[in-house]
């Protein structure tokens, strides 16, 4: 456990930033609605941010080792399940279960 004071401060900083982002725009609705740039970004940022976060999760993928196959196979299962059934819960649970089995039992080195 890191220093509990630091761990709590990290949560408080996150909470303050997140709440600020959720609450402050209500006070500034009109200029936000009028801004073409804001509307342009708001339509495109969600997809891009999610792609970046996905890449960030895979940033330390050991591509030269066999155990790098576990996340790649699990990712393929997740994407395949999602394109097939479009059920987020099923895709996440299925992909994670495959990864746990592969990382715990198959590619243990």
């Amino acid at each position, binding site marked *: 456990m890191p220093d509990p004071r630091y761990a709590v401060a990290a949560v408080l900083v996150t909470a303050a*930033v997140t709440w600020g982002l959720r609450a402050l725009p209500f006070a500034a609705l009109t200029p936000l609605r009028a801004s073409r740039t804001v509307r*342009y970004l708001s339509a495109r940022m969600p997809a891009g941010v999610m792609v970046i976060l*996905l890449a960030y999760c895979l940033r330390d993928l050991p591509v030269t080792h066999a155990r790098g196959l576990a996340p790649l196979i699990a990712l393929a299962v997740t994407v395949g399940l999602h394109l097939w059934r479009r059920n987020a819960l099923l895709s996440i649970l299925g992909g994670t279960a495959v990864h746990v089995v592969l990382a715990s039992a198959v590619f243990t080195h």
Partner: protein
Amino acid sequence: METSPAVTGGRPRPAPDVPVSAERSEALAAFRESAGAVLGFVPLGLAFGALVTQSGLDWWWAGLSAALAFGGSFEFLLIGLVTAAAPLAAIALSAFMVNVRHVFYALSFPVHRISGRLGKTYATFALCDEAYVLATREQARSWPGRRILWMQFFLHLSWAGSAIAGALLGSLIPESVTGLDFALTALFAVLAIDAVRDMRGDLSTPGLALLSALGARILFPGEMLLAAFALFAAALLARQLTTSKKPSHA
């Protein structure tokens, strides 16, 4: 299901302007509407809580983060940032970039239907992605403010409750079982697929994002997340500037 308003003896006094039966039917309706999202929250919350204790943090930290930050995807990232002792400024900037999408929820979330300063405050505090989606759907147009608040409360409660349960149960998982952290990767894969699908054929935006991520990984491996967000935002702004100068709107 008990719906009679008669059985109220001994219960705490309700808010003076709302009859108990109306309050209860709003809570019930909100419960039904939020059930799908709650079903999605519980396994992710359990995975989050289990990952917290597997990473060496105490169980209460999972509950604190779930209750106060209440932003699932960033909370998963926060585990890694805290165990790596990232500076608070870096945490604030990462939280800003990951959650900046919430700025745009103010454009359509029906906070004007919620009465009272306290209710409005809670509605903005608990404005997660799923609450936004539920409250802005076609069939939510007629929802009174109280039903929106109840719905947000159920989402909040199920996330915090399952995070604590996962943290307490997580210590029972044998150490040989690893790889649970893939839940976050899978979550982002699913969200990315859905978001790209919503773009209706605009593949250049996810392409720009992927290039930003790869560039940041190579150029700034220590601050990949921040660098990728900055590159992506700059690329989007540059593209908007160059396309808006053209006379056509295509």
